[in-house]
């Protein structure tokens, strides 16, 4: 086999490995892309503190709850709609009850619509930052303290905040928590 053939094989071999790793690079690229552009309505999973201002306008906030798969807990917002002013902090709660007879752990995942509102939402406190463990029959009111900043595009008059709770009782919880933290590391870099 001549030299140029060997070179072609080498280049192609590297390309194959390169593309394999590129497919994994798509994962952080996708996350960064979504966070920078706020495209998929994902919100940062760590606490941010923003100065309150008085120059805000009135908008409507809607709260939505979902149970993933067969997650048996009762999970619903205490208030479904809230009239708020941008630039101000508000606190609302979600009601949860473990209706089963075993101890269970849940993780809530937030999402915002329209998706370009996501980057204007700051949360000082959210139950979605942590895993929630409830004993059989135990209930709780889980708080979210949030602010919609005044840069929210003018055409947005109402914002929906949706939470889905997942049953993670059977998961390796530390591992999951680490993955979640890992995700919020990215958002720290990109903000």
């Amino acid at each position, binding site marked *: *086999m*001549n030299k*140029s*053939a060997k070179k*072609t*094989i080498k280049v*192609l*071999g590297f*390309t*194959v*490995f*390169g*593309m*394999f*790793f*590129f*497919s*994994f690079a*798509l*994962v952080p690229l*996708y*996350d960064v892309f979504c966070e920078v*552009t706020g*495209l*998929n309505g*994902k919100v940062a*999973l760590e606490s941010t503190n923003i100065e309150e201002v008085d120059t805000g306008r009135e908008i409507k906030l809607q709260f939505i709850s979902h149970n*993933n798969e067969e997650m048996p807990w009762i999970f619903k917002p205490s208030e479904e709609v809230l009239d708020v002013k941008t630039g101000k902090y508000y606190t609302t709660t979600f009601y949860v009850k473990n209706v089963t007879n075993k101890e269970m752990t849940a*993780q809530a*995942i937030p999402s915002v619509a329209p*998706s*370009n509102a996501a980057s204007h939402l700051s949360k000082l406190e959210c139950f979605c930052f942590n895993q929630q463990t409830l004993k059989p029959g135990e209930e709780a009111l889980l708080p979210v303290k949030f602010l919609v900043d005044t840069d929210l595009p003018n055409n947005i008059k109402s914002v929906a905040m949706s939470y*889905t709770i*997942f*049953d*993670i009782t059977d*998961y*390796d919880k530390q*591992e*999951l928590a680490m*993955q*979640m933290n*890992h*995700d919020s590391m990215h958002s720290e870099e990109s903000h």
Partner: protein
Amino acid sequence: MSAVIESHDHDHHHGPAKGLTRWLFTTNHKDIGTLYLWFSFLMFLVGGAMAMVIRAELFQPGMQIVQPEFYNQMLTLHGLIMIFGAVMPAFVGLANWLVPMMVGAPDMALPRMNNLSFWILPFAFFVLLSSLFMEGGAPNFGWTFYAPLSTTYAPPSVTFFIFSVHIMGASSIMGAINVIVTIMNMRAPGMTLMKMPLFVWSWLITAYLLIAVMPVLAGAVTMMLMDIHFGTSFFNAAGGGDPVLFQHVFWFFGHPEVYIMILPAFGITSHIISTFSRKPLFGYSSMVWAMASIAILSFVVWAHHMFTVGMPLAAELFFMWATMLIAVPTGVKVFNWVATMFKGSITYETPMLFAIAFVVLFTIGGFSGLMLAITPADFQYHDTYFVVAHFHYVLVPGAIFSIMAAVYYWIPKWTGNMYDERLGRLHFWLSFVSVNVTFFPQHWIGLAGMPRRYPDYALQFADWNMVSTAGAFAFGLSQILFLFIVLKTVRGGKKATSQVWEGAEGLEWTVDSPPAYHTFTTPPKVS
């Protein structure tokens, strides 16, 4: 280079070895081409049998023949087997037979790897098919295996599915490397790139696409494997992952993959139309540029499969326009084929019939593709039978007709015998009519709102489904005739000349029919 056999086999001289070991240890591009083509035909029959199960169930509304769970397994395996087992290996088989002979090379550049890349394929499909007998049944999540359907909700056999996809990917990648190295380094003196036959060009571009996207497919299934067995959360929202990410990764592979299945068909069609029109191909260099631009554009249109998952307006518009842009080079190709036929002295032998049908029916598939590319319209069409009709038009009378055309066109060269022209034409007309009876009505039931991938449907779709099933069985049975014709040609028939066809041009027509076991051991001169 092809010395593997010699060390094991004492009565090996210059012809093929005897018996079964000839096929097991062969490093000869013609033998391996033959193996690929027969394997592909076997898979075509297996995948076809599954299609018959699907169509039989859909003959009437209501559940009649199989359980919904089994229906899903048939649907999944049908798609996977037809794509990875029938269409792709058939094109690799054609490349093996034809590329060395067309560029005047003695063999493929890496003959032992060639042997390996073929023989791991039957193994991969054995693993995939054996999942039918495992607990929980075969994969049932569709050929697109969207997570979390293929992770959280998958049957246990998904691990075997992942393993088999890895092997298929390795096989394709090795095949692609072989083709590229052969074309780039083993052309006869004087054959510059822009003098290469179009089939060689089409395969060169296809091979680069394979090198670029098969590793991404491997990455996607590896991530699934890790989610299922190692507790990662690539696609698991509970752990901060995202199922939509799966779709992006999959279609980043998936859209170029559909062009992998059509570019070699473009090459084949160009040869056949030029031969039977007895005219040189119209616009050779624009054909090359069209294929190259289609290949490059195919990397930036993947999200047209995802218009309805919820993308921002800017992305919807970008992917809509980028997709429509592909219609331009595609239109150039269709124009060139028609211009080649224009004022030609055309005869209608079987390969030409299949090639003309390819041009017409593939164009219909291109048009329905354009309709699907219109984002707002796709919100209605997505996941209906309209999409099923679209991709079957580009794949069955598209890719598969081109493969059949190629077999009829080159089989006199391969075997030294002419096929039976009357039977060939009969096979063509049976296939042509039945393929349209099968798939054309699916446009209508799709527009009327019948969703894809369900074993049952609402009453108003009953009539056309019945027609479609009748067409499907007719098409399936016609392919038995194809098998018969091929076997008959292999066993004997009118002797073919070296040139075979009056208007045929190219190096493969300068060697005997059938060619010696080793051709072009000294390179020919191309002027």
